């Protein structure tokens, strides 16, 4: 009995800890295993190819690139493209590469991620446990919002931000990220909180806990997996955002992606593919590192949040 998982943990989340199931395990060197690992390896190669090309190219000098095989490893490794991408590449008059945008991206990403997740998780919680008349309608509209192309909303958002006096400020941008992160995040949190046994929620109400006490004391502590998913999704999305970053801020707060766009699209004579690739890798480094470190938590969190409808 003692090893029985708590009902509060979703079956999927606990199952992940137990490992995969699928069909029954078989001897190691069977034809099936060769086929299985063979397929996986081939597909993995396809997935890794672009990363390989990026890394290899970023380490080559321009003459070598011009000669030509994009798949060949560098004959002579040079870190010059990385240095240039980080500190020297020019956009217009500013020749300080990506470095300028890095901290801006951090300044934009951190509060945006925190605020958007805070709001979406409370939304999801309210939708799952405190339904009120119309709450599902609002949720449906929210999901509809996930399908609206961002470009369409540029004008209304400009007007909105202007009216509330946040246009051009960091908080304006944070608000925009919060708004557009809300549909999918709310869906995830709602699904997750729905999968939390309702009796737990009832028990807390009998124990005199109100809306916020239940949220902070009961729900949040047991929702680490879904928070990890939300953080990963939001960090990636906001860090990679170009459109909002460039439209709703000013040059001195432009995120890294704007610099990346400028480096990649400012062709000075000939396209410096090595610098472009280095810049691309540098820009993608933060989300990539997060994925490489917390990939496992990501799957676990998805399992917890998406299994229940």
């Amino acid at each position, binding site marked *: 009995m*003692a090893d029985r998982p708590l009902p509060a943990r979703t079956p999927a989340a606990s199952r992940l800890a137990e490992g995969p199931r699928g069909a029954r395990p078989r001897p190691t060197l069977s034809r099936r295993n060769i086929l299985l690992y063979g397929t996986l390896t081939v597909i993995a190669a396809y997935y890794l190819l672009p990363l390989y090309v990026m890394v290899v190219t970023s380490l080559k000098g321009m003459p070598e690139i011009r000669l030509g095989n994009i798949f060949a490893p560098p004959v002579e490794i040079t870190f010059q493209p990385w240095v240039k991408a980080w500190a020297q590449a020019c956009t217009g008059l500013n020749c300080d590469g990506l470095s300028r945008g890095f901290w801006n991206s951090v300044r934009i990403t951190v509060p945006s991620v925190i605020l958007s997740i805070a709001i979406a998780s409370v939304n999801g919680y309210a939708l799952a446990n405190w339904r009120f008349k119309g709450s599902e309608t609002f949720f449906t509209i929210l999901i509809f919002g996930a399908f609206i192309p961002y470009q369409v909303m540029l004008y209304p958002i400009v007007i909105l931000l202007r009216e509330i006096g946040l246009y051009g400020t960091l908080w304006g941008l944070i608000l925009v990220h919060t708004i557009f992160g809300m549909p999918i995040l709310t869906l995830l949190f709602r699904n997750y909180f729905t999968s939390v046994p309702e009796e737990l929620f*009832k028990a807390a*109400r009998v*124990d005199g806990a109100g809306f916020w006490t239940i949220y902070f004391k009961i729900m949040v502590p047991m929702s680490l997996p879904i928070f990890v998913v939300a953080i990963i999704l939001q960090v990636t999305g906001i860090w990679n955002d170009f459109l909002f970053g460039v439209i709703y801020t000013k040059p001195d707060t432009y995120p890294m992606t704007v610099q990346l766009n400028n480096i990649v699209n400012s062709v000075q004579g000939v396209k410096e593919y090595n610098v472009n690739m280095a810049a691309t890798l540098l820009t993608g480094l933060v989300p990539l590192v997060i994925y490489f470190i917390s990939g496992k938590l990501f799957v676990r969190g998805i399992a917890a949040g998406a299994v229940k409808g």
Partner: protein
Amino acid sequence: MHSVSVRDLTLNFGSVSVLKSLNLDVEEGEFIVLLGPSGCGKSTLLNCIAGLLDISDGEIWIRDRNVTWAEPSERGIGMVFQSYALYPQMTVRGNLSFGLKNQKLPKAEIEKRVGRAAEILQIGPLLDRKPGALSGGQRQRVAIGRALVRDADVYLFDEPLSNLDAKLRSELRVEIKRLHSRLNNTMVYVTHDQIEALTLADRIAVMRGGIIQQLDAPQVIYNRPANLFVAGFIGSPSMNFLPGATVDGGRSFRCGDHTLDLAGYEGGAVLDRPSAILGLRPEHLDLRQNPEPGRSLPAVVEIDEPMGADSLVWLKMDHRQISVRLPVERRLKPGMQVHVHVDMSKASLFDAATEQRI
């Protein structure tokens, strides 16, 4: 003074009516069991009493206080859930004291109450463990403890034992009974298990379709079921039902070619009814070799099921199946011709149209 009083309670989910103008008065210190098949509204009623569901109409009073619109925590209740519903990230101590902290009780008082509950339920050594490290039985003790520390007027149990295996279930059942006799608090207990209901309850409310069918002491429910549904729901195996008619001014019951004398029947005026149903519990029947006119019916043995203390004999009577409980020593062979003797004083007679007991 009623401890809990439910008055004309109606609950609708959209167009579906789940509870229909329901009334229930629970006396101080009484152990009430709400019993019924799944979907009968028993858990819903309990949730309404707890304030976890908003009712459509009616009132709920606890200890002379109208709590219809009060928050669950303000109703003076403690509640135990089927799935234990322990807060997974808190220790047992944390689980027990969570509600008290929300009430902003002084630390010493919390300590005292937790200590007392731990002592009563013998979970003292577990206080610093997380629920994940407990067995199912231990978890349910903690869940009961969490209700106990609230020093509530009324304790509500929502199928608390259904998730446990049979052995643990009977152990905890006894424990709950002991708890009730020690604390003497009002308890409202929901279950679909009639053994729990019969063993624990001072009174049982049998529910179906959002309506209380009968509210009575267990032995009354058992011996004098108010209608066909209660009669069929209580008892294992179920009561045998013989359709027929009452004749001779209500003095006899005719079933096919056979007639039974209703002289010993304890009930209301029988009268002549063209369509009636006679209910006979298996343990109130006896099998004999010889017929006794007006008191027995002929049947053929089909199967004999020895069950340890007694055995269950399945018979065929006019294409109808009938079960009879007998002492295990009496073995019967399939195909034997026997006569079923009826103790009319323990029988129940229902009107087939209204399904009500006569």
